[in-house]
């Protein structure tokens, strides 16, 4: 079973995304900000990270940069999500594999996850 880390400061967003991914047969770890996300990465192998861009304490761009700089986590593909446009996100961090503009349909999420993990 593949494991996906979902990091988002919005509880509702985490619940919706995690439930949809679990329904698709994935194991989901969740965290409410970048700092918790980094902690979660230590709990076992993660195959994909779905990360929100704007979060308190450590934001999505900072989390992404830390992951890409880490010898163990640097190969984990990242799907970045944000309510702001991709060009704004790309200015801060461009090491992600796919981008999802919020709000998005669950089908778009699932399609993107399957494409990135293929």
């Amino acid at each position, binding site marked *: 079973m593949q494991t996906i880390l979902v990091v988002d*400061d*919005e*509880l*509702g*967003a*985490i619940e919706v995304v995690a439930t949809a991914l679990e329904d698709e047969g994935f194991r989901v770890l969740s965290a*409410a*900000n970048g700092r918790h996300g980094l902690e979660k990465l230590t709990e076992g192998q993660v195959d994909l990270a779905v990360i929100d*861009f*704007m*979060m*308190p*304490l450590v*934001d999505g761009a900072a989390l992404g940069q830390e992951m890409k700089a880490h010898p163990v986590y640097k190969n984990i593909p990242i799907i970045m999500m944000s*309510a*702001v*446009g991709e060009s*704004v996100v790309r200015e*801060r961090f461009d090491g992600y594999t796919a981008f999802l503009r*919020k*709000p998005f349909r669950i089908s778009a999420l699932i399609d993107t996850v399957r494409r990135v993990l293929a």
Partner: protein
Amino acid sequence: MTKPDEPVPSLARLSSGISGLDDILRGGFLEGGVYILQGSPGAGKTVLANEICFRHAANGGRAAYITLLAEMHTRLLQHLRPMAFFDESVIPKSLYYVSAFNILEGDGLKGLIDVLRREIKGQKADLLVVDGLVAAQESAPSDREFKKFINELQAHASVSGCTVLLLTSGLLRHVSAEHTMVDGVFELEDQLFEFRSERSLIVRKFRGSGFLRGRHSFRITDEGVKFFPRVEAVFASASQADVLSDVKISVGVAGIDKMLLGGLPAATTTGLIGPSGIGKTTLGLHFLSQASAEEPGLLFGFFETPARLCLKARHLGLEVGKAVDRGHVELLWQPQRENVLDELAHRLIDAVRRRKVKRLFIDGLGGFLESATSPQRVSRFFSCLTNELRALGATTIFTMEVPEITGPVSRVPSSGVSALLENLVFLRFVERGSILNRLISVHKVRDSGHDPSLREFYITDHGLQVGEAFAGVEGVTTGVAREPASAAAGTPPAVPNT
């Protein structure tokens, strides 16, 4: 160390960037202050706070918007997107949105204060909005802990110079500890008046600054939030001294100027009272046809569109359209929808100031009265409004419609208002011999004599013309003129006192 005789530096202000709000706050929030913005759901707190953030970012500031509610800010941004102030390019560089709901759930107030402190520092924010204070209060183990949280937040805000807005629904106790601790409390309301509703703001407290007390209306449109400081508060004293002069202003009809012994006294207000169709607007168009570069004119009307007014004037031989083209006259039409009384007044005053209007024709008083949700305000409102118009040097004519087409005027429209007007002119229909005649009479003129006779007037292709005194009859004010009994008996009629 500050010496005892050194002046204490005044507290710097943070502009709200919102039209009218800084006027109410006498310049804006005080930097580093903590303010509660409260109101029931739908009162406008979120839109207002977001617009303040976007305006702040547009002016080079940095803001952080932190929600403690379970709702998603993705949705919030979607709702804000159609509004004129929304500018995605400032997110996240100058305006940062995060949710601290999870942190509050997991780590309580201690975790929350840590996030707020880090966001102020990390985002270099000089404006912080915390949406959902009630969630923080509910998660507090005791009132004492909640007070401690507010106190710590104040300390961080003060040392960092970050102004904090705490948004909360009206669920907090009316007077609670946080109200006494914070620097200001602003209450937003959305009140229902029969079928219509009106939004308003009351500043309950604003430490370290004067402010306009009482209730102030505001409106939310796609353009954003716009406040209309209550006329009685903002114009309690006229913005400039009233300049008295003996100058008379022509109304544009020679016969009426003669009745007024030269015209209307400059910078006074005149009530033009009469029924529908008598010629009030026609007289106003004459008044405006005399506008010039030196005496700019303004028609502030509720009933007829500018195009119709220009056509009407042309049929009367008056070149109001050309005066509009030359910039001597402006026609401002206020469609009769659910207008806000103070909004109308500010629009009027702004238009008068913008063009230094000297000839103002307001058609008519009814448009203002229908917008008043509190009738008890009307007299005081008009007193302050007309004082300001006088101070601005505008000679103003208000039309005031009476319900009776003919017959005695049973009720002067809004008698409290007519008492405030220096000059009163009546227009009326009078039947004589199965013909409806138009009559004009001057009832009072400030510091001036006038012709007291009732005179007939006519509306022709060449405009309004005044005829002779309506003499030799009686019962004119009943609406039906008749020969005096003495004349019927063969006695010559009395000579009228003109």
